[in-house]
């Protein structure tokens, strides 16, 4: 049985993490892989906790929630503190240093990038933080093909926002180039 690749995207409500999870899972479908995407969030649509789990595999996926992560993305300090110890030994940790100031665990696979600040500065609004950080994740981990990600973004966001989100994707890819170890 091939190993599942387990990803958790975590932060707070309104950061677009569930949409990011859907896009990642849709990209996996384009790659002809098996995938499940689940989520957990509070009753509020902004604020509160939010997370999306994506599992990508070549065999049947039984339990659809990520339990130990091959990759964890945390966009808030709270989410990071909550999940950091469930990363696998060689797992990748990506944090948004705009909000994550303290890391209780750092490895060779830790990436610290001020995604929200960069989104604000380069694209004029923090709204694309989810796509920038997801694209960064995709480029670093190679979990789906970049062209599949592009296709999935085009299918998942409203037509008026496609070009903005594709810009965000390119920005995420560039950052990955820059930060790659």
């Amino acid at each position, binding site marked *: *049985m091939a190993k599942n690749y387990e990803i958790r995207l975590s932060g707070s409500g309104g950061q677009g993490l569930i949409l990011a999870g*859907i896009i990642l*899972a*849709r990209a*996996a*479908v384009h790659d*002809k*892989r*098996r*995938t*499940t*995407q*689940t*989520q*957990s*969030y*509070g*009753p509020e649509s902004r604020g509160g906790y939010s997370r999306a789990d994506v599992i990508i595999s070549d065999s049947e*996926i*039984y*339990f*659809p*929630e990520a*339990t130990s992560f091959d990759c964890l993305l945390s966009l808030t300090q709270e989410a990071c503190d909550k999940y950091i110890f469930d990363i696998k030994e060689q797992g990748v940790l990506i944090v948004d240093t705009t909000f994550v100031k303290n890391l209780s665990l750092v490895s060779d696979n830790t990436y610290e990038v001020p995604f929200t600040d960069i989104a604000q500065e380069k694209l004029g609004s923090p709204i694309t933080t989810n796509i920038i950080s997801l694209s960064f994740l995709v480029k670093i981990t190679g979990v789906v093909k970049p062209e599949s990600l592009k296709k999935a973004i085009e299918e998942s966001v409203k037509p008026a926002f496609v070009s903005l989100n594709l810009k965000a994707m390119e920005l995420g890819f560039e950052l990955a180039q820059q930060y790659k170890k």
Partner: protein
Amino acid sequence: MPKTKTEKTKVAAVKEAPIKESPKKDNRKVVLMQGNEAVALGALDAGVNFFAGYPITPSTEIAEILAAELPKRNGVFVQMEDEIASICAITGASLAGAKTLTATSGPGFSLMQEGIGFAKITETPCVVVNVQRSGPSTGMPTSPAQGDIMQAKWGTHGDAPAIVLYPDSVKESYELTIRAVNLSEKYRTCVILLLDEVIGHMREAVTLPDIENVRVISRIKPTVPPQWYKHYDENQKYLSPLASYGEGYRFHVTGLTHDSHGFPTNKASEAADMMERLRKKISHNIRDLVQIESHKMEDATIAIFAAGITSRAAKSAVAAARAEGIKVGLLRPLTIWPFPDDAVRRMLRNVETVIVPELNQGQLIHEIQRLTKDKSDSNLIAIQRVNGRLITPNDILRKIKEVC
């Protein structure tokens, strides 16, 4: 999935699976789909043309999608003032000939209970989808729980049998929605589809069958002239033809105990006939109604009995335990009511220990206890959780290791 299919057939000898195996490759492509979306598409493919409901997390997407899709197909979508009105509307529309469905969650399901009883006693086909969330009362709207298993059976007063189906995946949500509609039409009753919050909100890559490969069952219409028509006329399988209002047939519909024409009665013999018919149309068709999946049970000494999302944690645990040489298997009911007594009794006869994980304070486990009287209490192990979190594969694996 083909392996699972054979095993299912072996256990329950299901005569009428909702989906025919297609020899050709399906033309519908692989899509990423949510459980609730699959329910809505299943309803449409089964021919549902009337939905009345009141949106509630975590079932809202079902109403949302049907609100967009039904009008395009000359169907009707009505957002009602509450869930009591919703169940009444789908029952009434069904009597007028529509195939009907509503979707709700715990608080709405509680409100619908009297209406469910009315649909059952009047033998009116309809489907209620309950995407379960944490309770009681409004509980935790976005958190999973399996607390409505007994309510789905006993929620309405007055001792009426129930048909309740329980999928474990997005694909199966589609299949069992079609099956629920089919069974409601065939057996003239209110069929309940229970989903877990996680299944309703989860997205998976699925390939749906071509529409021409979907088996759709519709109610039997009367062939007799109107003056001979009895609204509750039983044939040998206890399934009677059903006329619709507006077709020239006159019939009376009441929640009171009634005779074969539908008029109220207090006569013991007629009351007994009616209650017997309600009971027998379920109990005499168990083989048609019950579906159960048996997973790696052939040589198992430990069995896990789990439904819905909990069974998926169990499957992971079975794989991990098997990798360490522990002989453990899983039994998963797709039909939880009527309970698959015979299959469960047979499959559990040779195991030493049964583990029953469920997201409640003990509901399915009492059924297993009833069927495993030959085993001591210490060989029946519960894993129960009601904090809004799932039981994980590790929780189950730990228990497996404790008992082996």
